[in-house]
């Protein structure tokens, strides 16, 4: 075999020799030094041309490499897009490949450009391209041969003559190679394919939707639970742990790595755990009372008895210490309405009829004025009406009568509010025992605080005062036992007070207050658990239904929601969990409290018809229908609409909704049956 590397090595050595020397004469190889200047010049021409060719070829290779890389990138993109269109490939992979594809042209350029083009290679390429019959390559090779002096010269002259006519730039233009055409075709196909919709199986789409829902659910569960924990930090370690686990569950769902079944299973497990915690807490009768009290008051923070008394006093002042009877006011209003009607008719009458009517109204007015004055009302408007009547100004009469009616209305509202406050005060309990019994912890705390202040004021208390305090504490001992050691502390306080140990009594009272405070905190924990359970319930529905649309999650989780204020959530909780969850007899006892207190009956049959209910049925024949929670808006207060009228309106609206296809097909039968039954009743 011929040793080709020998030639290459020689060429490289010589080329390096030339390239390293700035002065050409210095670079002249020893074997050429005997040659004349012309030969050297010819060699220089050849060498320069070859160097230029080598450089140009290197760039051209890089250019072609770039386009080859582009073809590869195009193929990668096309294949990736086809895969994406057919297979459920993550979009991230597609984008990753898109960006990775750009590496190919760059790599193609670098790989090709990095390949050195030697002078020998350039010479051979020139020989081949320009059909120079290996003149250049042979001349380059023999230039390194010491023996062929004469032949060397002849070859150099011959090669230089041919090389001199070459235009390297023209020979190696930077045209678009074939690969560019293929790149363009691939890009067009890829772009066209981009417009084709992706094929995805029903299972995949379902799975994807589930993942989205789970992500959303997880986010909400975690965020809401965290927010609740921040607003109301849990007092009990177990509750804190349970809530932390709920947050973790939310975060896990957020990752959307679980299947639907797994997610439901996890949520159910967590729900059970929270239920257990809630049940444990709910067993405490003190908490039950507190919960019921909160439900009855409908307020987040119940006012203290002092505050309530102040409000009552203010209101009495506004009524000049005369509390009008609302029934009396109703009668007066009725009389006023009649007068207004008469005044209106009077304008149409003339002559004796008008005089008679005027006389009748004058009498009625004076009678009403007397009644108003007796009820403590301001009768100024009625007097104005009387004067206007006398002056024959019917319009003014009407106006004054209307003003008097408004005054009566305001008076009635004040009287009503006063009655409510008094009722509330009554519910709050008149002494510590009642406050504790009715779960009015803030009031009880305020009562205890008053006692403490009395004991610590340094003022000498009379025997009667001490005895009264002792009696109150003793009376409160039994209901206080519902609140941890509060009852015990009160007993201690009573004993100490009786023994004249004011300090000891105050200390025991402080401990009782502390116990009550702890109960308050536990109450907060229970509320947090209820809120978390509600969250999980919604999460379960979302995941189960595969959608959170129309769940109204955001609405329910407004600050203050599920705070134990006696809304639908409380009822739901005690119906769904506390009652049914093994609490049984040990949970809520029937008739344990007064009016607003809880009872089995309350729990089993909520009075509010808009409370959450579960409807079970079948959406499609043969397949089970999941439990669907239907909810309405809880409207508080007294209805002024007759029951029959409301029922008829609801029925009409239901029929209208049915005819307008607003009710889902699966529920139409149920809605129709409901109203049919309703009609029968």
């Amino acid at each position, binding site marked *: 075999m011929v040793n080709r590397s020998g030639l290459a090595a020689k060429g490289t050595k010589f080329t390096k020799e030339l390239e390293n020397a700035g002065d050409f004469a210095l670079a002249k190889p020893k074997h050429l030094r005997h040659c004349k200047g012309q030969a050297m010049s010819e060699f220089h021409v050849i060498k320069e041309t070859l160097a230029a060719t080598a450089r140009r070829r290197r760039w051209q290779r890089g250019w072609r490499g770039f386009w080859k890389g582009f073809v590869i990138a195009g193929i990668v993109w096309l294949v990736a897009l086809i895969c994406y269109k057919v297979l459920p490939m993550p979009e991230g992979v597609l984008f990753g490949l898109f960006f990775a594809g750009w590496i190919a042209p760059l790599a193609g350029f670098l790989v090709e450009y990095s390949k050195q083009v030697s002078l020998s290679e350039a010479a051979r390429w020139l020989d081949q391209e320009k059909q120079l019959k290996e003149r250049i390559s*042979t001349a380059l090779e023999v230039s390194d041969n010491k023996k062929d002096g004469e032949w060397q010269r002849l070859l150099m002259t011959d090669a230089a003559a041919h090389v001199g006519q070459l235009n390297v730039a023209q020979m190696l233009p930077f045209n678009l190679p074939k690969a560019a055409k293929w790149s363009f075709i691939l890009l067009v196909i890829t772009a066209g394919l981009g417009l084709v919709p992706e094929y995805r199986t029903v299972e995949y789409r379902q799975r994807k939707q589930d993942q989205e829902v789970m992500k959303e659910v997880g986010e909400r569960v975690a965020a809401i639970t965290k927010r609740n924990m921040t607003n109301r930090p849990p007092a009990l370690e177990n509750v804190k742990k349970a809530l932390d686990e709920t947050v973790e569950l939310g975060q896990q769902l957020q990752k959307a790595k679980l299947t639907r079944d797994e997610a439901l299973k996890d949520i159910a497990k967590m729900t059970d755990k929270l239920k257990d915690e809630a049940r444990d807490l709910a067993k405490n009768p003190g908490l039950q009372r507190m919960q019921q009290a909160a439900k009855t008051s409908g307020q987040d923070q119940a006012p203290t008895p002092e505050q309530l008394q102040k409000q009552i006093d203010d209101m009495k002042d506004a009524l000049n210490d005369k509390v009008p009877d609302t029934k009396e006011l109703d009668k007066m209003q009725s009389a006023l309405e009649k007068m207004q009607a008469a005044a209106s008719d009077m304008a149409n009458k003339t002559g004796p009829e008008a005089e008679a009517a005027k006389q009748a109204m004058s009498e009625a007015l004076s009678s009403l004025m007397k009644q108003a004055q007796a009820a403590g009302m301001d009768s100024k408007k009625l007097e104005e009406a009387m004067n206007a009547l006398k002056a024959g100004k019917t319009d003014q009469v009407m106006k004054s009568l209307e003003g008097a009616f408004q005054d009566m209305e305001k008076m009635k509202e004040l009287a009503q509010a006063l009655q409510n406050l008094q009722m509330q005060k009554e519910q709050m309990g008149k002494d510590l025992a009642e406050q504790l019994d009715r779960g009015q912890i803030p009031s009880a705390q305020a009562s205890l605080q008053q006692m403490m202040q009395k004991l610590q004021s340094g003022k000498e208390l009379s025997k009667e005062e001490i005895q009264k305090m002792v009696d109150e504490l003793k009376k409160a001992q039994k209901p206080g036992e519902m609140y941890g050691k509060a009852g015990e502390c009160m007993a201690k306080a009573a004993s100490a007070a009786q023994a004249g140990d004011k300090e000891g009594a105050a200390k025991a009272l402080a401990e009782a207050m502390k116990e009550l405070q702890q109960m308050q905190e536990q109450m907060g924990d229970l509320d947090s658990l209820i809120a978390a359970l509600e969250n999980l319930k919604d999460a379960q529905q979302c995941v189960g239904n595969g959608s959170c649309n129309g769940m109204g999650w955001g609405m329910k989780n407004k600050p203050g929601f599920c705070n134990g204020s006696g809304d639908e959530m409380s009822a739901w909780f005690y119906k769904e969990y506390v009652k049914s969850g093994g609490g049984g007899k040990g949970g809520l006892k029937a008739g344990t409290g007064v009016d607003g207190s809880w009872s089995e009956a309350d729990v089993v049959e909520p009075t509010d018809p808009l409370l959450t209910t579960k409807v079970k049925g079948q959406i499609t024949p043969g397949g089970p229908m999941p439990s669907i929670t239907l909810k309405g808006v809880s409207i508080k207060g007294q209805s002024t609409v007759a029951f029959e009228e409301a029922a008829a309106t609801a029925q009409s609206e239901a029929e209208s909704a049915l005819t307008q296809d607003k009710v889902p097909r699966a529920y139409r039968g149920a809605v129709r049956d409901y109203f049919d039954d309703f009609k029968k009743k």
Partner: protein
Amino acid sequence: MSTQEQITAFRDKFDRVKAEIGKVIVGHDTIVEGTLTALLGGGNLLLEGVPGLGKTLLVRTLSDVLELSFSRIQFTPDLMPADILGTNLVMETPDGRREFQFQRGPIFAHLVLADEINRATPKTQSALLEAMQERQVTAGGAVRKLAEPFFVLATQNPIDQEGTYPLPEAQLDRFFFKLLVGYPTAGDLMEVLNRTTEGYKAQVGKIIDGATLMEMQGLVRQVPVATHVKDYAVRLILATHPKSETAAAVTNQYLRFGSSPRGAQTLLLAAKVKALTQGRFNVSFDDITAMIHPTLRHRLILNFEAEAEGITTDHIISQILKEVPRDAAMAA
């Protein structure tokens, strides 16, 4: 004389010899050029063609153009080696004594025409072996050097094979070229008729003497060849070796034996002659490809399959030329 002048003289003489031969031989430019190439490469020549195509005339004309001694041997089945090489005869000396004296055969000439070489027996054919390669003969126990330059120009008839003895591979390998003399074209034939049937008598002059021819042969060997060109020649030769890594596909299919190293030497020498005659100072790929057919066609031994299918060595060589890239590095 400088190399430049030598080269110029080379081309001039080559052209002149060609022109002189052209006075007698009509057409057959390739054959004439091939013949001259073989002479300048210092090798022997085998001309193959049907009778009447001017093979013998070409050699005779060549002998007229070259100022060299010429002898013709008509090969027949009864021709004996001694008839070619010479023999010891009992001769009477002037003093009356009798002694063996070597009587030189026709081989002792510069230019030997072995006409219809395949008609002689292998024994006789092999008498040429030593002369063709070592330029010497051994007869009667003595080695006798032949004249320099020495050429054997043999002819053979591809038809009428009855009573012929195909040349052995060893002998074939000693021929520089095997030229196939084909039929003349219409124009050439017309010219042949004009010249041979109308009393035309061509006069050719002596152009080159033996010494000049030797010088020219020396010049040929100085022509530089680039490594990659040599590499091409080597790869071509290696491609003819069946069952080897370098073998071409066609080689494995149709060849029993490939070319010997002598084939590679011949190829390069012939390419050098070609380069000089083209006015170049170096050998090109084209020179190699132009010379490969006459160089290798008699050096490749066909297998049974090729024989049966009527595949010729020329066909195989053409196929090899297609398969073997000229510049391996560039192709890579």
